[in-house]
């Protein structure tokens, strides 16, 4: 099936996720869709798969314009999307997953379906047992199941969104062979979304590259890697030089830290961050840099190793009353022994013994409850310890994590003011936030609710709420969605903080920003810290190669 996208635009407020993209996908070919995070790949594919409607633009299938109202609508037209996180039902069996949305009769034909599925699977060399429960399967097997389901539902166009993340090398090989067969023998149209250059070069016939929501161009494969890198990341820009701060005192020490999550293991990270230093964390999304940043804020538990903030380990504050629940146990034990002794001596009967035990349990329970409440009251999470010691963390999700949509900026200010008394001084909070609104160029007033601000102004508001003096500032994509002028302004304010001795560690997907603003850049790939580069001596191309997982 021939897929044609004509002038697809998708705007989120003033963010242009897709800005006039026109592309054609011919049957029997494998297309790569390349671009760094935020380039607009996912948005474009969500539009093509019916998950989102475009702001404007047309989709043509074999020359016929179509409008999708839902993903199942798109699937009816033959467009199937394999999501990065499989959209299956883990507590159900493979066959149940397969028959869902496939067999809508009242009584399911499980036997027939199973035979069909097994036959179908073996045709591709997949080994799928229809009776196995999905939650016991690997990600790769679930992907195979999902792929078969899409094909069985008649998908002619297959969109694969980062399909190689989290699957084994064998499964990847099998997947690639399947994709080749589907394209070249069965004349399916394949769109392979990735930011891994190697894979795209290995698999695809042609590549389309997106940057900042626009189509940079298409390129037939094979071609030199450097061509693709330049298309993805743009031309080199002149950049300012920073001095190195190795002599300054250390603010943050990361020693041999391992972080384990179900998706990714980040292993053996060693880092040091000095006063007045800006360290950029580079890498494709999901390479481990965000986990490390959150661990440094005390938000992500670490499996081993340690993180020191100003020489002291960053851990939650244990309550000084941690021992009090033992009082309940001690009371219970002493009371029980006392009752048993009295029972044995014949001073009380069995009934009184039972009554006495009931009372003892009740009192012990009350002691336990009170002590647990007191412990909850007096302990502190690692993140709040981090904040108390002069750390700050600015998350990427503005209304999800950073601001509270329904609260005004004044209310935010009152919330974060450390000196706030029990009764809020609204006038003072209003004055303070008004000053900061001006300083940070936020377009909005003190009474404006966070949700009413535009994306860029939400970003500035988050930064405006930071305490004036900080030791360590952790940032996730600090200038995403901002124009050049605002970006420069924000970095001027950061520069002031650096001068005051604040250490900054930030994640960015923008290579120019990384090179221009950091002193050093730590490059992550697949959960490992590949290398720490001196920003002044690195080119965009080098950094692009490293991020793409290619060693120089």
């Amino acid at each position, binding site marked *: 099936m021939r897929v044609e996208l004509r002038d697809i635009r998708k705007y989120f407020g003033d963010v242009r996720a897709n800005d006039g993209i026109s592309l054609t996908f011919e049957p029997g070919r494998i297309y790569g869709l390349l671009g760094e995070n935020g380039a607009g790949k996912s948005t474009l594919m969500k539009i093509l798969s019916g998950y989102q409607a475009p702001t404007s633009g047309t989709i043509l299938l074999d020359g016929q314009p179509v409008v999708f109202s839902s993903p199942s609508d798109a699937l009816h037209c033959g467009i199937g999307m394999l999501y990065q996180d499989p959209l299956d039902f883990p507590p159900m069996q493979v066959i149940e997953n397969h028959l869902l949305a496939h067999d809508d009769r009242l009584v399911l034909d499980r036997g027939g379906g199973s035979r069909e599925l097994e036959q179908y699977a073996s045709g591709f060399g997949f080994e799928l047992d229809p009776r196995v429960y999905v939650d016991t399967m690997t990600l790769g097997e679930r992907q195979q199941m999902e792929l078969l389901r899409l094909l069985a539902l008649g998908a002619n166009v297959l969109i694969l969104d980062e399909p190689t993340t989290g699957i084994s090398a064998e499964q990847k090989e099998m997947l690639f062979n399947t994709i080749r067969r589907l394209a070249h023998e069965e004349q399916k149209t394949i769109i392979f979304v990735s930011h891994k250059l190697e894979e795209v070069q290995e698999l695809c016939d042609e590549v389309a590259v997106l940057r900042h929501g626009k189509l940079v161009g298409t390129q037939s494969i094979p071609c030199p890697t450097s061509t693709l890198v330049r298309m993805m990341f743009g031309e080199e820009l002149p950049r300012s030089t920073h001095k190195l701060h190795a002599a300054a005192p250390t603010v943050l020490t990361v020693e041999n830290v391992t972080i384990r999550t179900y998706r990714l293991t980040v292993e053996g990270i060693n880092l040091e961050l000095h006063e007045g230093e800006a360290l950029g964390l580079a890498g494709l999304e999901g390479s481990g840099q965000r986990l490390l940043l959150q661990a440094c804020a005390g938000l992500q538990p670490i499996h081993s190793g340690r993180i020191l903030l100003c020489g002291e380990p960053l851990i939650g504050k244990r309550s000084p009353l941690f021992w009090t629940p033992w009082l309940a146990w001690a009371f219970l034990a002493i009371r029980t022994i006392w009752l048993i002794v009295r029972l044995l001596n014949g001073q009380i009967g069995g009934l009184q013994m039972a009554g006495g035990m009931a009372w003892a349990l009740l009192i012990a329970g009350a002691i336990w409850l009170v002590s647990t409440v007191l412990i909850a009251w007096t302990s502190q999470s690692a993140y709040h310890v981090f*904040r108390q010691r002069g750390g700050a963390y600015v998350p990427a999700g503005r209304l999800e994590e950073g601001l509270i949509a329904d609260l005004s900026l004044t209310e935010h200010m009152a919330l974060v003011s450390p000196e706030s008394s029990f009764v809020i001084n609204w006038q003072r909070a209003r004055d303070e936030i008004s000053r900061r609104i001006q300083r940070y160029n936020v377009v909005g007033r003190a009474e404006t609710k966070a949700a009413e601000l535009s*994306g860029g102004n939400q970003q500035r508001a988050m930064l405006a709420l930071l305490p004036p003096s900080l030791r360590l500032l952790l940032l996730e994509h600090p200038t995403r969605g901002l124009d050049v002028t605002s970006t420069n302004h924000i970095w001027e304010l950061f520069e002031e903080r650096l001068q005051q001795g604040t250490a900054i560690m930030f994640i960015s997907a923008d290579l120019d920003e990384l090179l221009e603003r950091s002193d050093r850049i730590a490059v992550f790939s697949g959960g490992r810290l590949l290398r720490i580069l001196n920003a002044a001596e690195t080119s965009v191309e080098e950094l692009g190669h490293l991020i793409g997982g290619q060693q120089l």
Partner: protein
Amino acid sequence: MKDNLLHNLWRVVPVLMAVGVTTALLIVVGASPGVTYSALWQGSFGDYDRTFSTLAFWVPLLLCAVGLLVTFTTGLWNIGVEGQMIMGAIGASAVALEVAAAYPDIPGWVIVPLEIVVAMIAGTMWAALAAILKTRGGVHEIFGGVALNNLAIIATNYLISGPWQPPEGGSFRGTVPFPRHALLPLLGNTRFSPLSLVLALIALLLVVLALRGTSWGLKLKALGKNMRSAFLLGVSSERGAITAMMLCGALAGLAGAVRVLSWFDSLRQSISGGIGFLAILIVLLAGMRPLGVLVISLIFSGLLTGGAVVQLRTQLHSAISGIIQGTLVLFVLLFGDPHRVFRRPQPTVEAEAET
């Protein structure tokens, strides 16, 4: 501005709809709507006795609703308010039966405050248990609350049929009446205690002020609107959840004390009368607006106390007030939000910026 006026006027519409449906229903079953409604009015606010009876029912309802304002602001579903009220009733009864009856010399102005304090502590502890189960044990407050409600009912039944069983036997379904001086000071021969109403109104005022003007209230509001953001802005979610639940428990405990010390004069099996659950409904209907809570809870109290007279005057079952209540809830939920009624339907697919 015009929009605002329209929206404010709109609030009456669901009420009119509910009255309309109920009237139609009355006509269908062959009853006279006029007689029924006048009986309902007579039964709730018709004379002094009826009015005080309604007020006596209203006070504990209002107290629970005020407590729930705090927990709902924090984003917690304190279903356990019912159990917290029962525990308050048990606490007050314990003082009345074990202290006041045993030492008749202790004057009422010592006994009554003691009963109230013990009731509030009992309610607070019961709520703290639900909160700790949530924050430390990962038990959602709804499940914890339901379990603790049942435990509280079981405890009542045990006490009534066990240690506090009246000497004449167990058929009475309640304890012996408390001594007169252990009850709240009542108005004349009614079951209404003006003191309890004053306490409830003070509670409402304090809660409103605390939620509007204190950093504690602001933190609860932040937690309720977005727990993750509030945490990252430095608010301790655990502390917020525990204090909100405990305050609600204290007020529910007070409500329980009012139930046993004025509405009844002893601990009964049906001590809660479903007031806790009704309060949840009221707070949701009022959209968490304090004034709305005040008005709606009074209306509901009137409906419930008026139902009995309807049964007496007409041949209708007293469930008629339940029907009005039910249709009212239904219509408010369906059409109560003018923003939702007047806005064009939005596309359902969530538009989220690519991250």
